[in-house]
């Protein structure tokens, strides 16, 4: 058995009036990138907060890096980027980072060395300007996110937990984040992140867990999850917008169970017993100019919609996932 970076066993968390997490178990192996997927209000943030011992579960056990997460100092080896980003606005960036480092047991010259490394790496310190000497509220939103990210990684944690890391990131910062996550993995670190952006999860994660309404819907390696979800999926690309005739074919329930319509690109789940060849023939007959027609494994996005559906999103729930 491979060593587990996180091991959540039958965890329950109740709040007055509702259950945020019910009987959740999940295992994240060391050295993997693990995605925690789910709609808003699914219990992602609650789960992550329990992992970090910020709140205690009502039932169940949680281990982090091989020991219970209440063990002294084990959380010093964990880095956390909360969904609600926040920094002391009036503090100088460098002093703030030193403080965050000290909270994780990194201090003195070692802390300064690492701060310099990260400021350089994320271009917060260039030959023209050292943003480390500026106050946090003088920084742009994007730069503040970089600072927060440095704070998460400054102590070189073995386990990195990112709650909705992509929310509010511009494309450049999002790319920098992806690169960093993959580099962490290369160095044998474990990364767990929650997201509702399936594209990112699909590209970056080794394994995922989909939760909805506080319960696990499915989990496992991404390749395994996708293979399991069946092979009766078709990726269809059209030249030009679908005509009414083409739309009529796609709406035929004897052929198509579900279609994800992105105007010129369609992800189609065939109906039981339907034949891909038959679908292609009907489409061509309807006058579609087909650019791509391919049998594919379903995307995580499809699987998510399939498993969770619209019903998985609790009515009126919002806020922390």
């Amino acid at each position, binding site marked *: 058995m491979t060593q587990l970076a996180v091991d959540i066993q039958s965890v329950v968390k109740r709040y*007055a009036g509702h259950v945020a997490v019910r009987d959740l178990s999940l295992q994240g192996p060391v050295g993997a990138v693990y995605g925690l997927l789910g709609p808003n209000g699914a219990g992602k943030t609650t789960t992550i*907060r329990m992992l*970090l011992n*910020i*709140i*205690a579960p009502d039932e169940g056990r949680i281990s982090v890096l091989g020991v219970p997460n209440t063990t002294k100092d084990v*959380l*010093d080896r*964990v880095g*956390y980027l*909360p969904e*609600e*980003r*926040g*920094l*002391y*606005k*009036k*503090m100088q960036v460098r*002093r703030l980072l030193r*403080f*965050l480092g*000290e*909270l*994780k*047991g990194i201090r003195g010259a070692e802390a300064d060395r690492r701060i310099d490394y990260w400021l350089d790496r994320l271009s917060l310190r260039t030959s023209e300007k050292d943003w480390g000497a500026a106050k946090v509220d003088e920084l742009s939103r994007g730069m503040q996110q970089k600072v*927060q990210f440095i*704070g998460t990684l400054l102590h070189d944690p073995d386990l990195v937990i990112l709650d909705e890391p992509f929310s509010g990131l511009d494309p450049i910062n999002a790319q920098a984040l992806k690169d960093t996550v993959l580099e962490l993995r290369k160095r044998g670190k474990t990364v767990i992140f929650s997201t509702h952006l399936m594209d990112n999860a699909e590209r970056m994660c080794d394994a995922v867990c989909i939760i909805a309404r506080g319960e696990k819907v499915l989990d496992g390696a991404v390749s395994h999850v996708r293979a399991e979800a069946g092979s009766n999926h078709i990726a269809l690309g059209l030249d030009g917008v679908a005509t009414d005739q083409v739309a009529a074919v796609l709406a035929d329930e004897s052929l198509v169970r579900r279609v994800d319509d992105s105007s010129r690109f369609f992800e189609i789940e065939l109906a039981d017993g339907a034949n891909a060849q038959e679908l292609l023939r009907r489409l061509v007959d309807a006058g579609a100019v087909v650019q791509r027609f391919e049998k594919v494994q379903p995307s995580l996005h499809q699987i998510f919609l399939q498993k969770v559906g619209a019903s998985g999103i609790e009515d009126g729930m919002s806020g922390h996932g």
Partner: protein
Amino acid sequence: MDKVFAVMKREYMERVRSRWFIFATVFGPLLMGVLLFLPGWLASRSQSRSDATDIVIIDASGAALGARIGDALVAGGGNRPVVRVVEPSAIVQAESTATKEVIAKQRQGYLLVDALTVAGERARYSGRNASTLPDMRRIEDGVRGAVLSLRFEQAGLDAQRVQALSKIKLDMTTERLSERGRGGGGENSVFLAYAVAMLLYMSIVLYGQAIMMGVIEEKTQRVAEVVVASISPEKLLAGKVLGVGSVGLTQQVVWIGSAIAMLQLKGPIANALGIATVSTFTLPTVSILTGLSLLVFFLLGYTLFATLFAAAGSMVSSTQDAQQVATPLTLLIVPSLLLLAPVLLEPNGTLARVFTIVPFTAPILMPVRMSLTNVPMLEVLASIALLVLSCLAAVWVAARIYRVGVLMYGKKPSMSEVMRWVRVSR
């Protein structure tokens, strides 16, 4: 413990660096200096001015009292006042002439003396400087002295001799005497008690509120979650209370230190400023035991209120709501001020004895009482013991509220919700 220290260090460094702290720390001693030296300086200025002698004396006494008053006033420096001897029937005429001169700014004012003045009953002064106390005192002293010398002379005593004999400059010094011996002036110990009360009250309110605002700021800026992922809320709370407390102590060391220095060096400073007389206030002698218990009461009182303020701050999500939760706490502190006067008047009365034991008023009132009188050791110890217990209870409750509250956003929780936070630890 390292983490508590990290939080403490951050709180301390960020606050000590703030403009507000530097301003208040420098401004305090400055204000003290002004209070100490300004009266002397003003007095020395007004004495060198000649307003008090730049007057008209309307003498309707028929006994040449005006000339005597003029002599007495000139003895203190300045020009000789103009003396106009008139018949009692011409007083009205003389007054209206003098009034015109005052309005035309030729004179500061006029003094009217008549037979009633000689009888020792009254004199009347009207002038621009009628509200200048040193001037009025000088004129009054002058009149009194003149009447006295006139009477002695009428009684057949030698004027020179009378003057020599009646010249008395008396200052009464006061001293506290108790079974523990002599020490400090009586007036001074009231002053000290008052200063102690104000210092304690201000630092408890100011720094208690500073902690509350700090907690709310951490919430509104969403920093709290990052921090509590690395340190338990209890340790965070402890670090904050210690850090802000150290800021308060630093400020007080500066204030008290400069007060002592100023009082010790007031002679040389006054000379440098060219001031002859400085307030007679001298440094009260504070025994080491009193000093120590002052420190103990400050620390305990601060801890009690600071933890409660922190808990209150963790309950709300915006500074607008802060006042609402701070009000009940303020109501616990304000009685200390309301009871200050009764305790000063009767430091061993029942009221004083009761409220120096009650934990919420003891931190301020007990030191006040101790600087006024000798409080039985048993009462001091009982007060401290009760305060320590209250502190422990407050820390326990505050830590539980803080642990839940610091991550709670949105609506201000109801009292019953807060009670549940306390019962269920997290």
